[in-house]
């Protein structure tokens, strides 16, 4: 009896904790819930596109607005609660402090507060499904006036309010988290951890935190303004003469929906980099570890990370080439967008050059984290190369809001981001459990996911080139051409199920390995960075983060905090 009590207390203390490790794990579990729900929603969407008459259990036939609600909630869950929460807050809390030799975050209590605010935000968002009218239908970008006026559609009343409250709270949590991470990186590094000795993951979290301060502050302001348009009769985003459903909306001073677009995308584009920068840092680190060679051009990687962060703040207008923005502004944003392709390409070339040095199969064959890192690289290349096409206003004017864009961002943001998250979980799992994840299951998980992901998102390029717009609940209508996409869409739906089904292997692997996995020892990947090797007290860093392969005789690596080896 007392043992059970003890267990319960222990579990509670892990939930209501200020320990960065437990908070990190809690964040990751929250993301796991969000990604599971988001995936199920996407499967409902995929079924609805090819079989509109299918009844979802406990919900029934999906009406057109139901499809749009699925789209909106899928996007919101995935972008905010998975691709932001997991790499930035989750691994940022779990790994960041130990990688710089800090025993805790700068503000542990604030870290806990951020987590609870994020949880509250998720609960409020999901509640939107259960209010009258259901979840909002205006997509995760929620352009007004559709999002500003309750009469504009089902879900735009209480559902939209909940969305705004949820995202407002999420912004607050993210800003507090960013302040915490920034302070931790600046002030809590252990002795000897100079900036240019920080692992590239830490550089990524540093730039990410700065981007969050800019981007989420603006989104918070935008959300507050939209909320006040809805309830306080202001008109930041609603123009005069607005008529919806034949009803004139109370006279408004002349606001402009364009203001929302600018504010939203000023957040929205840096957000993409917030999601993907930690993945870039991890990729550099893991490629160094698995090829047993230093990162190729550490300074170059740091510089490109900073450049991507900087340019990331200057490219938001490329989402707005045909939105009504001045065409001259389109030119300016096209040029900044092309410019950001250069540091991004530089990173890819750096990674390819690291790979070209050859694997050291004596140490590692191709373990699962390495496979997922290669998967990240493949998706980053596949999705990245369509970036320059979409950066050209004259081509984007055709492809904007078609499936081509859906293919682009699912490859470069969603699949690249998620594959990097899998790499992170497989790589850092021993830190949490003392066990390695099962390799055989991991390899099946990787190959099925890779095939599923390419099978799902690559064909969408063709639908986009054919002119099929996003957000279409049905492939019928007065123009007959859309129905010809049915075979393509059917294929996509089937591979989407393969992709989702493969994730069951991951879940099984998580639970099985946590209890029965092979014992990992202290440093299973023979890694140099501090999370594997730091002494409990008084860590002193004596060298850079990637000292691999200098000695032909094993061990071929020197941890950052190791005493200097004897002079030879």
């Amino acid at each position, binding site marked *: 009896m007392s043992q059970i009590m003890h267990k319960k207390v222990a579990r509670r203390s892990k939930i209501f904790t200020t320990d960065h490790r437990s908070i990190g794990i809690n964040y990751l579990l929250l993301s796991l819930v969000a990604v599971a729900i988001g995936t199920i929603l996407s499967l409902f969407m995929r079924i609805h596109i090819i079989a509109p008459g299918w009844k979802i259990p406990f919900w029934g036939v999906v*009406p057109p*607005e139901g499809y749009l609600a699925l789209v909106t909630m899928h996007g919101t869950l995935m972008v905010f609660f998975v691709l932001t929460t997991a790499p930035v807050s989750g691994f940022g809390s779990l790994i960041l402090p130990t990688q710089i030799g800090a025993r805790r975050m700068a503000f542990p209590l604030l870290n806990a507060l951020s987590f609870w605010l994020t949880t509250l935000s998720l609960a409020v968002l999901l509640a939107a499904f259960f209010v009258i009218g259901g979840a909002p*239908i*205006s997509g995760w970008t929620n352009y007004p*006036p*559709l999002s500003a006026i309750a009469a*504009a*559609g*089902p879900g735009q009343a209480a559902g939209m309010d909940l969305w705004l409250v949820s995202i407002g709270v999420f912004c607050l949590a993210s800003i507090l988290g960013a302040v915490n991470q920034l302070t931790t990186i600046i002030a809590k590094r252990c002795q000897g951890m100079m900036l240019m000795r920080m692992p590239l993951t830490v550089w990524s979290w540093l730039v990410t935190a700065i981007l969050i301060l800019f981007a989420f502050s603006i989104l918070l302001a935008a959300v507050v303004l939209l909320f006040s348009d809805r309830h306080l009769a202001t008109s930041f985003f609603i*123009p005069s*003469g*607005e*008529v919806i459903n*034949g009803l004139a909306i109370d006279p408004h001073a*002349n*606001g402009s929906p364009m203001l929302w677009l600018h504010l939203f995308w000023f957040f929205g584009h840096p957000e993409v980099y917030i999601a993907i920068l930690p993945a870039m840092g991890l990729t550099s680190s893991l490629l160094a570890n698995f090829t047993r060679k230093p990162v*190729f051009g550490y300074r170059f990687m740091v510089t490109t990370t900073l450049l991507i962060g900087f340019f990331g703040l200057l490219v938001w207008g490329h989402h707005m080439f045909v*939105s*009504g923005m001045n065409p001259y502004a*389109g*030119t300016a944003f*096209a*040029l900044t967008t*092309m410019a950001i*392709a*250069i540091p991004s*390409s530089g990173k890819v*070339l*750096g990674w*390819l*050059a690291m*790979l*070209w*040095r*050859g*694997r050291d199969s004596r140490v590692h064959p191709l373990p699962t984290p390495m496979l997922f890192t*290669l998967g990240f690289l*493949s998706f980053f*290349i596949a999705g990245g*190369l369509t970036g*320059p*096409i979409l950066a*050209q206003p*004259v*081509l984007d*004017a055709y492809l*904007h*809001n078609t499936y081509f864009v859906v293919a682009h961002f699912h490859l470069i943001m969603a699949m690249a981001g998620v594959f990097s998250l899998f790499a992170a979980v497989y790589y850092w799992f021993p830190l949490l459990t003392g066990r390695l994840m099962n390799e055989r299951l991991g390899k099946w998980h990787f190959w099925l996911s890779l095939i599923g992901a390419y099978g799902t998102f690559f064909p969408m390029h*063709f639908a986009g*080139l*054919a*002119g099929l*717009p*996003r*957000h279409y*609940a*049905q492939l*019928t209508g007065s*123009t007959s051409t*859309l129905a010809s996409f049915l075979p393509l869409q059917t294929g996509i739906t089937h591979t989407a199920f393969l992709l989702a089904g493969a994730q069951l292997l991951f879940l099984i692997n998580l639970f099985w390995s946590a209890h029965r996995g092979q014992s990992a020892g202290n440093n299973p990947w023979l890694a140099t960075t501090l999370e594997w090797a730091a002494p409990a007290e008084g860590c002193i860093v004596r060298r850079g983060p990637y000292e691999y392969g200098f000695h032909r005789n094993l061990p071929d690596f020197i941890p950052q905090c190791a005493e200097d080896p004897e002079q030879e």
Partner: protein
Amino acid sequence: MTDHIWWMPPNGALHGAAIDHLMWWNLTALTTLFLLAHIFLIAALFRTRKSGNDLSQLRWKFLPLAGLTLLYAWMAISAQKLWATIRFQGAAPNALQVEITGEQFQWYFRYPGADATFGLTRPELINAPAGNPLGVDRTDEHSADDIISSILILPAGHEVDLGIRSIDVIHGFFIPGMRVKQNAVPGMEMHIHFTPDTPGDYPILCSQVCGSGHARMQTHLQVVSENEYEIWLKKHAPEHLGATK
């Protein structure tokens, strides 16, 4: 250069050929890079530590990067020239005028009629059940000969100046076959211009999510000969005009 990119609908507009040409080069260049990168990636996995050059010299990183930079610069410049041609200047003064209004979930096309001037519209007059979905002010003398249609009819070979508006939410006016897309934003009137040159029937879609009926907000563009266009105009001229003649 092919005259038709795989999957893309046939182009029917004067400016479309140049866009398709650019699209084709872009897709070819980037698909090649995609394949090269993946061949390189897979080949690298089969290398062992001792085989040959390890590319650790700086030039192996900066040479390809310089090449890619040149490619991106070429893309930016060539696309920019075309964008400037199409969008930086307004339509010719003699271009045909058509006003397009998006409304949940319908497109309306208004032709100014013989006086070449649109009648005034007032939001407070909007009343679709009473036959006035655009809020045309009937007391304005210019509105008498305006033609309102639910499909877009254009004569081939004649430049058209589209004034695009919305009365409720943001819509996306998209004619894939004309390589034309422009959002319709309430409170603003956007102008784009182009010349349809191949007669035929082209779908018009809504490309910006606008509410529950977004997917069915579709209509047609019919590009016809000058002659057929004149006949259509006469046939659709408001009846009371015919009566006063």
